[in-house]
């Protein structure tokens, strides 16, 4: 293979004249982090709320939330982003559609909202399954003590379900970060998009994607540490089996 490696490419000024290739990639990383953080900030509370509603006896809210989860979980994320970004403005009446298209940072906002909704649907699925996996007796014990169903949910079922689903949530957190790269398809200049433009300007495809890979790994290494810390802090005496951390004695 006659590929000319050039690791010195990073400090070189990029062809678009905005700075070095390194700063090009780092600005991509910035958008990736912002998209990941905001969409997770939307997905976690929304997903928990939906997950809880899906376990309540009331039929109406339960069915509505089930429908939400099935819809947003089962349509590919890339299709959802296209629908909101490209199709929706065309479907709206003329002035509204144009206004939407001209919004500053429309790609970023669309990416955050689409990814947030998508991850929320997945989080709600985990939370629902966690609550439903608890033994039926726990609910009965709370009710038998005179607690209301809402109190049983808040004080008994949720704290236990969340501990059960924490590892699954950690993996949704990682997925959410990785899925930000889909936003490239609607023009958000996040890390993967920046690696691509670096490749197009400089033809150093391997260096560009090696750097992107390392940056993704670094971000998710931080994510993994954060979730491990959360798991450790929430571990219950007598039940704790922290992963990857060996035995205490």
């Amino acid at each position: 293979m006659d590929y000319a490696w050039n690791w010195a490419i990073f400090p070189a000024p990029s062809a678009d004249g905005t700075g070095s290739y390194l700063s090009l990639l780092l600005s991509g990383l910035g958008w990736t982090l912002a998209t990941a953080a905001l969409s997770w900030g939307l997905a976690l509370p929304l997903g928990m709320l939906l997950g809880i509603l899906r376990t309540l006896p009331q039929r109406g809210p339960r069915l509505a939330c089930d429908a939400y989860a099935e819809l947003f979980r089962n349509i590919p994320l890339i299709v959802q982003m296209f629908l909101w970004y490209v199709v929706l403005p065309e479907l709206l009446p003329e002035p509204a559609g144009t206004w939407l298209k001209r919004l500053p940072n429309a790609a970023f906002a669309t990416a955050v909202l689409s990814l947030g909704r998508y991850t929320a649907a997945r989080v709600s699925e985990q939370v629902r399954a966690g609550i439903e996996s608890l033994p039926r007796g726990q609910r009965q014990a709370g009710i038998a003590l005179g607690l209301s169903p809402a109190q049983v949910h808040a004080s008994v079922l949720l704290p236990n379900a969340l501990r059960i689903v924490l590892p699954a949530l950690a993996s949704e957190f990682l997925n959410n970060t990785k899925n930000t790269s889909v936003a490239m398809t609607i023009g958000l200049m996040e890390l993967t998009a920046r690696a691509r433009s670096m490749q197009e300007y400089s033809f150093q495809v391997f260096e560009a994607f090696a750097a992107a890979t390392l940056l993704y790994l670094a971000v998710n290494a931080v994510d993994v540490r954060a979730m491990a810390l959360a798991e450790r802090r929430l571990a219950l005496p007598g039940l704790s089996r922290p992963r990857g951390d060996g035995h205490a004695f």
Partner: protein
Amino acid sequence: MSRPLSGDRPAIERDAVSKSYGSFAVLKGCTTQVARGEVVVVCGPSGSGKSTLIKTVNALEPVQSGTIRVNGLQVAPRRLRARTGMVFQHFELFPHLSVLGNLCLAQQKVLGRSAAGAERTARALLERVGLAAQAEKHPAQLSGGQQQRVAIARALAMNPEVMLFDEPTSALDPEMVGELLDVMAELARDGMTMMVVTHEMGFARKVADRVIFMDQGEIVEDAPCAAFFETPRSERARALLSRILHH
């Protein structure tokens, strides 16, 4: 063993209580009473409806017909439950709370007691069931017998007028059954009204005032303790007794 019968209404009155799941009748017109301070043991073959019978007393299981009164009142389920303590076969302690937290949760949320007041009550009850030293531990750090005693203390913390037990010893190692039955016998001595589903016939003999024998959703026998053991009327009760007592 006889207890002074007070002149007022029984603690539990059930009149023609029926319940079914779909077309399957779990309880078929069960009528019985439990006097204040009385201890009633419920036994019978598996699937005969014993758990369902006591879970209808505190409205954990709704019924299709019949009436259930506790202390003469047909009260709303939540008020009723705060006044009836229930102990389950599998303890059902809340694993995320310490022993103390398990005892305080409903005291604060249902009875509106202060944190300090709830803790005082909790510590006194833990003393009573011999677990004062375990107050700060979590359920998973206790043995089955200790967990079940915590569960009893948790129910007692609500000042119940009636205590319901659903096979409280059947998930315990044999060597822990005795200590739990001792706690229950002491509770009975202190005058608590109790309905106990159990196969511990030794306990029934020593502590119970009456025995209810169920079969296929019906109360087949409802007799004073001595009469039940000496002259059981039904075929199935005789079969059960001979199986349990001659082993």
